[in-house]
């Protein structure tokens, strides 16, 4: 059984199906990708999985638990976190506190202990946060405010925040958008590293080079429906995918650029 399974997941706005009967499996320890043209419903899918958008039909199970009726924060506690396309960082907190806020698990009595004994019981989380900071090379910026940092670094803070709680599955919504090619490649290597630490990842991105290279398995979404799925090699050759998304020569060029990178990744691992 996969870590996360969506079955017949449908999200409708009026008569429009933003997601229509989407079945996706995210296997434990794998990096699964979701690609599709603009407006295909990719972010809607993440919103639906994480509880920000109500389902019109279908089910989502995570780690054997039916997610129906669970709020976003309850899902996060189950080990399902996400990043946002538009970052949505806590701009008033330092980078470290951004991560701390996500890492700490509040209990019913924590408001009393927090006020009477601030700082107590933080050590365990400190370590988690340090690991996440190190993983994304953010340790030296830990005490800065996000607003003082570059766009690329802010992207990494978003990813680090999602990792800080040691989740089982992280849903990444276009983490490479706005990064240059080099930064994007670096991020790709990082993502492969996280998998080896027992985490599973789900990636949405426009950077075909990144998606085709780092993912183990890819779903292709168009007009809210899954039109293809398979390994990167299979998807790259799939005629429906080429027609829907890669069709233009630019897409093919990206795809072949991806092949070159892919070899590099395999050599690395």
């Amino acid at each position: 059984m996969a870590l996360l399974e969506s079955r017949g997941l449908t999200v409708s706005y009026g008569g429009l199906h933003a997601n229509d009967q989407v079945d996706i499996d995210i296997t434990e320890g794998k990096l699964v990708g979701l690609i599709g043209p603009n407006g295909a419903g990719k972010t809607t899918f993440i919103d639906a999985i994480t509880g920000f958008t109500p389902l019109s039909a279908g089910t989502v199970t995570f780690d054997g638990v039916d997610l129906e009726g669970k709020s976003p924060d309850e899902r996060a506690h189950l080990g399902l976190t996400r990043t946002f396309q538009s970052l949505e960082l806590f701009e008033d907190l330092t980078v470290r506190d951004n991560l701390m806020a996500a890492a700490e698990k509040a209990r019913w009595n924590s408001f009393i202990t927090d006020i009477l004994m601030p700082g107590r019981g933080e050590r365990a989380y400190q370590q988690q946060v340090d690991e996440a900071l190190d993983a994304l090379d953010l340790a030296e910026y830990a005490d800065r405010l996000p607003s003082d940092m570059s766009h690329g670094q802010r992207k990494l803070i978003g990813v680090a925040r999602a990792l800080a709680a040691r989740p089982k599955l992280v849903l990444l919504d276009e983490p490479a958008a706005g990064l240059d090619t080099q930064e994007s490649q670096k991020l790709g290597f990082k993502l492969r590293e996280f998998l080896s630490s027992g985490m599973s990842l789900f990636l949405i991105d426009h950077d075909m080079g990144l998606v085709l290279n780092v993912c183990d398995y890819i779903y292709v979404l168009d007009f809210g429906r899954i039109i293809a799925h398979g390994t990167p090699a299979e998807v790259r050759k799939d005629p429906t995918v080429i027609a829907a998304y890669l069709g233009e020569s630019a897409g093919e060029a990206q795809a072949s650029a991806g092949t070159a990178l892919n070899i590099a990744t395999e050599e690395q691992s």
Partner: protein
Amino acid sequence: MSVWLVFALLGVGTGSLYAAFAIAIIIVYRGSGVVNFAVGAMAMIPAIVYAELRATGDLVLPVVVIPDRYDLGSPWGFWPASIAGLLVGMVFTLVAERLVFRRLRGAPAVTCLVATVGLTVVAQGLMVRAAGAGTRRTPAILPDDVIDVFGRSFPVDRLWITGVVLVLGGGIAAGYRRTRFGIATRAAFLNEKGAILLGLDPRRLGQINWLIATLVAGTTGILASSLGGVSPFNYSLYVVPALAAVLAARLQSVMVAVLAGVGIGMFEAVTVHMVAKGHVPNLLQGGFSSLVPFAVIVVMLIVGGRTLPDRSFVVAPGQRPPAAPPRWWVWWPVIAVMCIMIAIGSSPLRFALLQTLFVSTLLMSVVVVTGFIGQVSLAQLSFAGFAAFMLSRFDGLGFPLAPIMAILLTTVVGTLVSIPALRVRGVLFAIVSFSVAVVFDEVLYRSPTFVGNGGLARVAEPRLFGVDLGIYAGDDFPSRRFAFLALVCCVGCGLVLVGLRRSGLGRRMFAVNSNERAAAASGIDVPGTKVTAAMLASAIAAVAGVMFAYKAVDFTGAGLSAQDGLQLLALAYIGGIGSIGGAVIAGCLAPSALAGYLLTGGGSSIEQYLVTGLALIIVTVAVPGGLAGLPDLLRRMGQQRRSGSLSTTADG
């Protein structure tokens, strides 16, 4: 049945005033994005100018420095006097728009709202100086015959004013829908940048809308001065029902606001009759009718909270408590000086210090709401008052237990009251908390049943292990022991905030304040965190309330009203909203507190009130961090200048 109808009809007069104010609020909101608490003041200035001209022929002006009263001979007639009144009102509005609201374009909606509070205070202060605080009635303007309705006499002027307001509302609604100006205003409201690209000038549109709103409010103010009279303060009380009507109209439709305003007035009149008939439990007899607008506001927020338009951000950067730990090198001397004041200070100095400690503690509860969660609450003083009255109720339990019970109960009530408001943010939260303050003030603090002892609450001196800790202990009033106790409480609340800032809970509050979506995605329970903040804020307000009660010993609702709450928020902004330092500075600046004692020898005057309003406006426009943020602001400006001069030398 017919009796109820007559009473409902009697309410249309007041309801029409609500409706007219609601129209003015909507016009300003659509024209410049400001939720205008000053609408009452905008109606009051023309009305008082008019009333003075008609009664004495003197022209009074809301000004300082130059004379504010000019003898223009014998009393004036209706038309010249009302035109003069409206002109004065429009000039006042023009100046305010030019100096304040134009600079606040793009500022958080709550900052603009606070500026309108400042404007209200300034207008009231100026008019009290110019014309006195009394209520004056003007000769009848509308036909004032009395007709017979279901066998009861009914003054027909109420229907006339309703007619005037309905015509006004209809005309304005049509005007904004049909004319080029109305369409331009809507365009600029919906998309300011787009409107600029189309060649419209949103600032000019905003200015004209402010003037139209002044005309609407002023005309109504003049008409109403012949019905119930006008004083510098009474029209400001109509703001809450008017806001309820505005919310019912979703800050949009003028006609819906008019109907809602009239409806609220009718229901209020019916509830007054219910009280007279004894249909209402004794406890609620104080101001049962004020529950009507409150109910409308709460229902509107519950039904449509999320769909009401609002600008999401509340507090501007630079207004938040600094991430740095507290500067102990500042705080130790401050606490030491306070200890010295208690030990060797004179009696009036100690009394001023007690007032400072009370206000500082109370404003620390505002720090929790505003600084951590990013909401602006106008109800904290009401929670303090609730705790004070509860303390007098629990007095029989003895010292440590009675205040503890009072604080616990207040915390529960404060939290429960805050829950409906959790759905909304920003300026809507401010509105709902203000209506809570009005309800507490009108319904509870004026109800002899609630206050007890025939309207005067009393608490016994606190006493622990046989030691009298009360304000009357020993020979010296106020007693030094009590002052130390108050200082300990105030410092304790401050330490709680310091601890909160460093704790996980504080981080979660900041996270929720920063970005609710991301907070939820990070596993933070957003409603739970907000409730916790409301709980903590109510508890600190309750501590302040207990201090208030032990300080006063005998007290009524005086000093706990919704208007006092507005003035407190003004002080909090001047001191620096959202920081402990700001709370303490505001505590010093409060009426009858340290700054007043040291500078003017104590007491509170209309000049102080006026200066508070002016300072508030200056702070909102120029110093978003308040006085507490001034050092940081100066440092940043200094750095900019230095780096600027460096770059020029590099260029040269």
